[in-house]
């Protein structure tokens, strides 16, 4: 049947793509071992969607190669299309069709017979808890339900590789949890998943390994823990009782921590990276106590992926994405 592939379900090498004078991708490499989840992370415009479009045969790269499920995306795109399921950034659900009709149509277009398609569509509706609404036009579905339907569409042909392009963008927290659950189930079934996201928390939750891209280039790769270790140390965060003490607090934190502390008068928060963890925490509290500064809350955080992103690129991921989005709407 399908071509064999040696433990690597997706391999992209040296992908380059320009649109006019803009270089969207500048030599992106990535590899996903079979059955694993790779989180492709980066702000809007970093090249995530371009990478996805190349791997799903929607776009040809100017240079580089892409192998998906043992097939060459450039030489044999048709075979790649038979092996993958794509759930796009915008749920490509036809809102005038019912949930059942959407899935039935996709199944038919994968080449299944009418009866196979009907059975498969019903199965997926059941699995994605859409049975009750399956015969209602999807126009009336909530955002979360549409996402589930779109995800179901990607799984119609039981693909070995599933590509999810920002599967939770625009979803409320409940919808996001729902989607995460579905993705976890996929992984349990042994499916290989390429997941792009702007939400660092999401990659942290779901991905076995993470590739961070910015401006068309890979700027970091590794597991979430490895990336966090790159930032080094932990973050000591405390809240003082009186905002007037913040300046003195910052001075103390600068002494015990590594790097420049930051403060926020509004929340009365001050934080700093520390190399020595609990030791630095105790030292900071002792010195603050000596200066009679009242501390109302204190915590030692492992770095989040947001910290990683900030450290790697010099700007925050979500802020950047937020501005880019506003720009697109205006």
């Amino acid at each position, binding site marked *: *049947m*399908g*071509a*064999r*592939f040696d433990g690597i379900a997706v391999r992209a090498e040296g992908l380059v793509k320009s649109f006019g004078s803009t270089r969207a991708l500048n030599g992106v490499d990535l590899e996903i071992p079979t059955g694993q989840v790779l989180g492709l992370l980066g702000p809007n415009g970093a090249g995530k969607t371009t990478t996805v479009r190349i791997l*799903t*045969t*929607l776009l*040809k790269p100017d240079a580089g190669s892409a192998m998906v*499920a*043992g*097939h060459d995306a450039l030489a044999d*795109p*048709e*075979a790649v*299309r*038979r*092996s*993958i399921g*794509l759930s*796009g*950034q*915008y*749920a*490509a659900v*036809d809102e*005038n*069709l019912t949930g059942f*009709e959407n899935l039935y*149509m*996709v199944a*038919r*277009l*994968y*080449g299944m017979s009418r009866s196979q398609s009907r059975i498969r569509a019903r199965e997926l509706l059941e699995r994605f808890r859409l049975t009750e609404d399956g015969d209602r*036009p999807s126009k009336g579905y909530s955002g979360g339900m549409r996402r589930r339907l779109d995800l179901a*569409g990607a799984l119609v*042909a*039981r693909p*070995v590789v599933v590509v999810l392009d920002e599967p939770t963008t625009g979803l409320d927290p409940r919808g996001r949890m729902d989607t995460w659950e579905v993705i976890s189930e996929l992984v349990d079934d*042994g499916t290989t998943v390429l997941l792009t996201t702007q939400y660092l928390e999401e990659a942290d939750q779901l991905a076995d390994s993470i590739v961070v891209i910015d401006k068309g280039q890979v700027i970091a790769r590794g597991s979430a823990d490895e990336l966090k270790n790159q930032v080094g140390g932990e973050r000591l965060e405390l809240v003082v009782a009186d905002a007037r003490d913040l300046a003195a607090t910052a001075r103390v934190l600068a002494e015990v921590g590594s790097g420049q502390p930051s403060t926020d008068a509004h929340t009365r928060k001050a934080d700093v990276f520390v190399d020595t963890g609990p030791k630095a925490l105790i030292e900071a509290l002792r010195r603050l106590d000596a200066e009679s500064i009242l501390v109302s809350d204190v915590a030692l955080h492992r770095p989040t992926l947001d910290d990683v992103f900030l450290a790697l690129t010099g700007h925050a991921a979500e802020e950047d994405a937020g501005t880019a989005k506003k720009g697109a709407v205006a």
Partner: protein
Amino acid sequence: MTALTLAPPQGSAIARTLRDGGVVTWRNLMNVRRNPELLLGATIQPIMFVLLFAYVFGGSFGGGAYREFLMGGIFAQTVAFNSAFTTIGMANDLQKGVIDRFRSLPMSRMAVLLGRTTADLAVNSLGLLVMSLCGLVVGWRIRGSFTDAVLAFVVLLLFGFVMSWIGAFVGLLSGKVEVAQSAGFIWMFPVTFISSVFVVQTTLPGPLRTFAEWNPVTAVADSVRGLFGNPPLPGFERPDGWVADNATLYAILCCIAIFAPLAVAKYRKVASK
């Protein structure tokens, strides 16, 4: 896991294109069924043209005789406008990501266009039916033979289908629905007005007359007038020349001449993907 990759589908490329095209046609028709307002453009608009031209301009042009002459023209204009509806439908699918989903499936790429144009052909047929009834009300009659009348409808639908393919390409190029709404309609007006749709082409000045004489829309309008047995408008110079004498043949040749390069260009693009 058993099958790593779905088996390649059975059957020839043409059979697959037709099968997938059928699925996409079904999808598009379901869209129309759930949104009957999509039919307004294809039905109300031509009726409006009939009534405006028959009763606002018609009085100056010869009353009943003009109304009978007008219908063949409006039929041709109605099927030509099919192009604009396809443009908008295509741009809409593109913008909503439906085309991307189709393109990521192992289906025939040609089927996306085929499904769109076939569904629009069905809508167009309905438009023609409504038009014919409207024509009967204002005094238009089929005076020729039954076979000729059938041939007239075949010419109209064929032309509508070909125009729809042009519209599909315009839609793919325009990308955004807002652009498609202008791009789809704007060229329709000169193409349908500089023709024999509303007036006799011999009354047009110099270059416009030449354009109108060779305009496929003129050929379609004059062809169906002939086939329906509707008499020419009295008191005007009769068009002559090869095109005027062979309107039906010329209309069909135009269809082939427009359609074939589009299909081949598309096929090349698909084949070299």
